[in-house]
């Protein structure tokens, strides 16, 4: 008599077995996140690609017009200027963020009094809303009352006020500087985490072998930091490339489109100008660049596994 009861316990009813199976449960647990992401992320991504092939405007559904939007953009000098600006902005801001961020990380990795305080304070620019800190930069860059101009004048370095946002070259340099200011903390703190995982014994061994400080950095720190640099910089490049807020606050793309990024041009044409189709086409044109960045990150991760001695 005992045997069947054991069998019953081992094989509960179909329903409860189904409810406890990994796949059903997994599906149920995934449902809320998957539903939200599919509806508000995957679908709009597809819709955006579709909109790029239509002449949709605000308040009027569009019809399929093939690659007309792209043909128009191909011959649009403002679009190409925005591509150039985006690449320039991303490359120069990322390089500066990397160099200065790594430097700050190396400093913070030294033995310092109040280390955790410095670590916390350094993160501030990254924590506060970008728009609000950009407004502060707007005031710092004011054409008449710029504190920077005033300070440089007092020091006797310049003889007239700098037109930070009114001149194309100055405007580009100014928005890049503001972006670097905001991005340094993220790079510094993530690289600091990487630095702290490097064992001190490696440095001691290298020093005994007669390595100079530069050689220590070049042959111990840098190789061991490469994987985390790859990931951090991918994120940094991705967010710089798709930046919108800073430009929108500081210049709105001006003067004469000199600081228009693809994201701000897409907003200007799509939302402010009402040409949803064209705006979507500009946004879609950003995707190849983003894919390149993601692939870069993927291979960065691969290399990391290989370095740790694991398989692919």
């Amino acid at each position: 008599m005992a045997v069947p009861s054991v069998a019953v316990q081992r094989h509960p009813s179909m329903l409860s077995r189904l409810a406890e199976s990994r796949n059903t449960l997994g599906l149920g647990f995934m449902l809320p996140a998957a539903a939200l992401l599919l509806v508000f992320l995957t679908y709009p991504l597809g819709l955006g690609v579709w909109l790029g092939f239509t002449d949709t405007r605000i308040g009027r559904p569009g019809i399929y017009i093939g690659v007309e939007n792209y043909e128009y953009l191909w011959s649009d000098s403002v679009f190409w200027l925005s591509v150039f600006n985006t690449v320039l902005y991303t490359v120069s801001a990322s390089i500066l963020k990397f160099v200065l961020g790594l430097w700050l990380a190396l400093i913070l990795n030294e033995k310092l009094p109040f280390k955790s305080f410095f670590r916390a304070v350094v993160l501030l620019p990254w924590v506060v809303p970008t728009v609000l800190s950009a407004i502060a930069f707007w005031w710092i860059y004011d054409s008449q009352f710029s504190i920077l101009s005033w300070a440089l004048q007092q020091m006797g370095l310049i003889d007239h006020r700098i037109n930070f946002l009114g001149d194309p070259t100055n405007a580009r340099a100014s928005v890049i500087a503001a972006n670097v200011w905001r991005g340094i903390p993220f790079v510094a703190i993530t690289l600091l985490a990487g630095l702290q995982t490097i064992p001190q014994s490696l440095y001691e061994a290298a020093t005994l072998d007669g390595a100079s400080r530069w050689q220590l950095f070049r042959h111990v720190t840098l190789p061991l930091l490469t994987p985390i640099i790859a990931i951090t910089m991918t994120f940094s490049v991705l967010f710089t490339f798709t930046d919108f807020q800073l430009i929108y606050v500081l210049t709105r793309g001006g003067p004469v489109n000199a600081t228009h990024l693809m994201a701000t041009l897409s907003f200007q044409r799509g939302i402010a100008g009402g040409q949803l189709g064209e705006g979507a086409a500009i946004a879609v044109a950003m995707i190849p660049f983003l894919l390149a960045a993601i692939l870069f990150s993927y291979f960065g991760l691969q290399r990391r596994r290989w370095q740790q001695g694991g398989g692919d």
Partner: protein
Amino acid sequence: MAAIREVERLDTDEGGMGYLQSLPRRVVTVYLPLLVFLIVLLFPFYWMTITAVKPNVEMTDYVNYNPFWVVHPTLEHIRYLLLETSYPGWLLNTVIISTAATFLSLAAAVLAAYAIERLRFSGARQVGLAVFLAYLVPPSILFIPLSVMVFNLGLYDTPFALILTYPTFLIPFCTWLLMGYFRSIPFELEECALIDGATRWQILTKIVLPLSVPGLISAGIFAFTLSWNEFIYALTFIQSSEKKTVPVGVLTELVRSDVYEWGALMAGALIGSLPVVVLYSFFVEYYVSSMTGAVKE
């Protein structure tokens, strides 16, 4: 947590070769650059604060007053901001929207992270990768199609437009962070509970969640900060002045004519930054460790 412990351990047995450096050398290579970094990184905040309490006379008169200091501090700008603009309303909107989006995303992310990391259903790895890829999709390429959707769904100019779209960048992030956290909880605890007859739901609510409170806190702070700082969706989906969030309201409503109210603008920027700074300063250790932990994973 493993990350924190590891870092602490390295900190304590660091010893290192610091003693080989002389003090003058350290001043030049460490303290001086650090000072410059701190001044550059913190100056905009100082400038924001000093402008917010500076009377208009002093603000534009660089000849008689040193712009780096304020002679007669005033609360006029802050009074104007809080009593004569819609600023308090924007603050309230931002709090409501950020809180709702954070809780929605956290709930969805906890379930998803637990399923991917612990239930290990078939295809869990691929789903985990898909979640990571979703995090890499930037709002800048989604806002146009989303604005069409939001309009067609009748959500345009309502807080729900933001509460439902913010999870698109919050869920991937929180899920990724929590997956790393759940991984650090020993399997044995769950196995014991399973043998004692607990259901998966009981394991999640009674064992895994209480053990991952620090992870939940940091994911929550991250999510709240990200929603608080969000700009492009709030700019695109909200039209009426009284429904705006702080970043959008300050930029679009306080900048009215050619004469900028710099004092009020700076006060608005400062007060709008305070909540996230306060929140963050309470939990800075969680914040830093989980940020670095999430990257290390």
